[in-house]
């Protein structure tokens, strides 16, 4: 990922900043600037998600690209945030512990590093509540 692309996404990566449509009450993560339901009547505002949610489904990654190989085996899950938007993220727990329906909360972790001398990408992962 380029340094500039990462930098632009820091608010949503660090703080789960998404958006909300005031007209219909739907939440969007990643943020949308346009409500697909209300269309021109939609009024979009910024929203910081609480970071609590539950596991909808998951997979255990046992073989990965070089960048994430040191983390294997790790759990990647689709998480429904309590406001009602879904994110794909790593859940920091053992493959034996993870369950569908498990309550999770956000944590701040290193996501990846650009080699030995490049930028460190921080962001949000989840952990069992």
């Amino acid at each position: 990922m380029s340094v500039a692309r990462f930098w632009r996404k820091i608010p949503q990566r660090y703080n789960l900043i998404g958006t909300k449509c005031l007209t219909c009450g739907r939440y969007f993560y990643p943020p949308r600037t346009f409500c697909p339901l209300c269309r021109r009547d939609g009024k979009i505002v910024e929203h910081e998600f609480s970071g609590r949610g539950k596991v909808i489904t998951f997979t255990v990654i046992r073989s990965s690209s070089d960048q994430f190989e040191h983390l294997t085996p790790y759990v990647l899950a689709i998480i429904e945030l309590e406001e009602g938007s879904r994110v794909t993220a790593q859940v920091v727990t053992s493959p034996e512990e993870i369950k569908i329906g498990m309550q999770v909360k956000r944590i701040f972790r290193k996501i990846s590093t650009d080699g030995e001398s490049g930028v460190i990408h921080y962001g949000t992962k989840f952990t069992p509540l």
Partner: protein
Amino acid sequence: MTGIMTYGVYIPRYRIKIEEITKVWGGNPDEIRNGLGVFEKSVPDLDEDAATIAVEAARNALMRRHLSPHEIGAVYVGSESHPYAVKPTACTVGEAISATPMMTAADYEFACKAGTAAIQTCMGLVKSGMIKYGLAIGSDVSQGAPSDALEYTAAAGGAAFFIGNDDPIAAIHHTCSYTTDTPDFWRREGQDYPRHGGRFTGEPGYFRHVQGAVNRIFQETGKSPKDYTYAVFHQPNAKFPQRVAKILGFSPEQIKPGLVVPHLGNTYSGSSMIGLAATLDIAKPGERIFVCSFGSGAGSDAFDIEVTDAIEGPDFKLSAGPSVQDLLKNPVYLEYALYAKHKGKIVMQR
């Protein structure tokens, strides 16, 4: 009245026991445990560093008390293991608590006392009216070279203190320091592991500076050990703080709640601050806490702290954030090989 608005701690979930380290490098685990008073130490997860620990500690503090991010005017992070040599950890923390961009920030480095130096800086900025709230953090994923004596204690953890003068949960009545140029412990630029002066680290380093700062603050405040309910000293092991407490006239009961090193290890910049946090976890209004940090190189910062009614008030909810004892519960123990991977001690083919 300037003091602590709220505080939070973070300790990684992993631990390694002394006997797991001696299995690899030899040595008698009983002798080492008795010599240091340390049984196990915390180990960071593969994706944790001083910045992620600092963020979690700051967020845990804000769970206990809501402070408007726009009123946080300064963020200082003390560490001897900042992830970057150039690029401040404090900016990452500021962003992660939404305090950016209207704030000042910098990283501090003063071995194990960089975090308490950050508290002093925030006190000055708050007292002068330059900022409303300042955030001072001590956070480390400290390194001991494999088979070095430091490997038994070099641990990971951090504590965050928000400083302000708007109904603090603990007033900081006074602080002062004692600093000299002493080569008791160091790490040169570009080196992975620190070096220390062996036996030289004790007397001219820790004991001279802690006693220097304590004697100075007692002179300036007219207080003595009997005026305090609790006392917290920097804890590179359990023996040094116990010995210095005895020399200065503090009792074992006074230092007990804040002596977290036996099951945590030395969290460097986090050490005396996590000790203070563990003490605040159980302290009641009106109780007085004495704190003295130590950083090699060398210096000590002493603090005269008094818990206020606000710790039981409506704006502060202690149980909303994890206590130090909560964070020490349910550890996952690692074997040496996995520990070495967690600490990046294995050199990989690149």
